[in-house]
């Protein structure tokens, strides 16, 4: 095991990007406010001075072009990191992501590949209103041809960026706007990669399986602490990748606990909970002791006013409540 260093998710992302830029000259960053300003979430702070404007490009406010040009540059042999300021604006780039990035390798018989990294930020809870607080990760996970990962921990943030940049396929790295200050141990290994499509158990337990990703993992951890005081041991599976989806860990866990709660910040309908539940039905129905529960956002556009916004989002308390319903 490599030595580790404690750092924030922001620092981990930043360090990974910096190392990859030194490692490979074809890597460059483009997006709104990534240069002079150092990134909306300060991930690329200092990069503009360190690497110059050729490799750290402030772009016009044009998400379709930020991704579209990234697809083009990737086909021409570069390894662009296209940054979308927030995932809400990724809706404006959907065609480039879904109809191009995700399709090119397959539709052109492998003649072209798209080694593109799309970095963006998801999540609500900061009073930014419905059109500015989406958590629509599942939309991107719907399409074959894209890889989608959502770091919840600092080591994953570090390794996922590296995996994304070095991978020959388009990868979306979806960070969470409220996790940048979250600290964790990060391996001091410049080649630390997070294997594509590998989930991980972040806490062991025997009574119930909690499946989540991104911010949801932290609600689960908080809930597990509360439950532990009452003698309930929750096992937590961090999916890490929404595509490819690793079913092995949560199925194995479920076969042990026989009970499951799926936690996600997104909307309930056709969400991650629906997918995970279907996989359990297909692969582990006989091990089920109680109906699987979902904890999601309420099925409304996320409101601005503080209290209603908080009530509309999942929380550790809601996870605890759901666990008690399946026990």
């Amino acid at each position: 095991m490599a030595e580790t260093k404690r750092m924030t998710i922001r620092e981990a992302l930043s360090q990974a990007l910096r190392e990859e830029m030194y490692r490979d000259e074809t890597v460059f960053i483009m997006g709104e406010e990534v240069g002079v300003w150092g990134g909306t979430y300060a991930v690329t702070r200092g990069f503009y001075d360190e690497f110059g404007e050729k490799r750290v490009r402030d772009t016009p406010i044009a998400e379709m072009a930020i991704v579209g040009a990234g697809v083009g540059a990737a086909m021409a042999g570069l390894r662009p990191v296209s940054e979308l300021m927030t995932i809400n604006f990724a809706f404006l780039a959907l065609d480039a992501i879904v109809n191009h990035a995700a399709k090119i390798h397959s539709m052109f018989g492998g003649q072209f590949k798209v080694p593109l990294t799309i970095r963006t930020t998801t999540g609500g809870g900061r009073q930014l209103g419905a059109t500015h607080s989406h958590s629509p990760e599942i939309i991107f996970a719907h399409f074959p041809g894209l890889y989608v990962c959502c770091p919840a921990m600092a080591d994953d943030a570090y390794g996922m960026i590296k995996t994304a940049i070095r991978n020959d396929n388009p990868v979306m790295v979806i960070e969470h706007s409220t996790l940048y200050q979250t600290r964790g141990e990060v391996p001091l290994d410049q080649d630390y990669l997070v294997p594509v499509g590998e989930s991980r158990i972040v806490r062991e337990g025997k009574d119930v399986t909690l499946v989540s990703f991104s911010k949801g993992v932290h609600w689960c951890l908080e809930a597990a602490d509360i439950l532990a005081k009452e003698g309930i041991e929750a096992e937590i599976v961090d999916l890490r990748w929404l595509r490819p989806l690793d079913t092995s860990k949560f199925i194995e866990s479920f076969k042990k606990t026989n009970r499951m709660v799926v936690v996600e910040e997104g909307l309930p309908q056709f969400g991650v909970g629906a997918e995970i539940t279907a996989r359990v039905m297909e692969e582990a129905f006989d091990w089920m002791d109680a109906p699987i529960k979902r904890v999601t956002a309420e099925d409304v556009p996320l409101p601005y006013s503080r209290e209603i916004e908080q009530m509309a989002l999942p929380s550790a308390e809601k996870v605890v409540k759901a666990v008690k319903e399946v026990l």
Partner: protein
Amino acid sequence: MSDKALDMTTYREEMDERPSDKLSPQTLLEMFWYMLLSRRLDERSWILHRQGRIPFHISGMGHEACQVATAFAINRGIDYVHPYYRDLAMCLAIGITPRDFMLSLFGKAGEISSGARQMPSHFSSRKHNILSMSSPVATQVPQAAGLAFAIKYRLKMGLQDPNDTAQPRLAITSLGEGSTSQGEWHEGMNWAGVHKLPFICLVENNIYAISVPVDQQMAVRNVADRAAAYGVEGVIVDGNDVLASYDAMAYAVQRAYSGEGPTLVEAKTYRPVPHSSDDDDRSYRTREEVEQWKRKDPIQRFQAVLQERGILTQEQLDEYESRARQMVDEAQKFAEDAPYPEIEPNLDPNSVYAPVEVD
């Protein structure tokens, strides 16, 4: 339609009669009042944010002249307005009140757009035909073209009397220069041009999009230079000069009302404050630059004109200042005392849909 943008700053001198010459002293004072009120309300909002009493503020400071000029050039409260987040002064001049704005900042029940579901500065009021924007920029532009399309459709179908001034006769939308890089802006402009719609696009060019200067958004000098490519008339104006802005806007309004088609008015202005309460502008521009622009402050400039013309006395100015302070104080207190929105109805999935009426 000319293929070069019209520069109002020079064009005005050639005009026999400037539309703004026809404004009465009362109207001029009213325009001044709204600019001042907006400034004082805006300043208070920054303070409230610094005190940690509100979560967010995005400001219209420095843009007041072109905004109030716009409100006064259209049929206020009747013509469709699809504004953007900086348009506080425009919306106040159309009828949104300091109370309405404060309710929104504090996220309180009774907030006029949606009972505090929508963010502040995403202005919306059915009563005034002001439509709410979404947070992705420029998305209001195709919609505004659609509003203008509906106006023309009604006229053509005989569903509307062309002289009925109680009906909207144009749609105006606004946005920053950076947001014109967005595909939706180009699509909306083209649409308006192709259909020759009663449509106005006000571009409030403050030369920055957050930290990014205008020369990194576009390779042309003026946003208005692009108008010709859409078959739209392009006009450039000093957006810190309220009377010049009024002239430009009156020209655009007259074109829309008389069926001559869409106009793009580019108001050159400046934002003397950070982009929003989340921004620190010291990293991307010098203090000298900001100070220089502050000398061109639209309110001070208009004040000087009005005083020179003997329209605004010191007494009147003092009275405006104290009235503005009172209104802002009162609005703040009103919002602070107001209850938060109820939780249940706001989390009801049915509330998302218009009620379905079935006989």
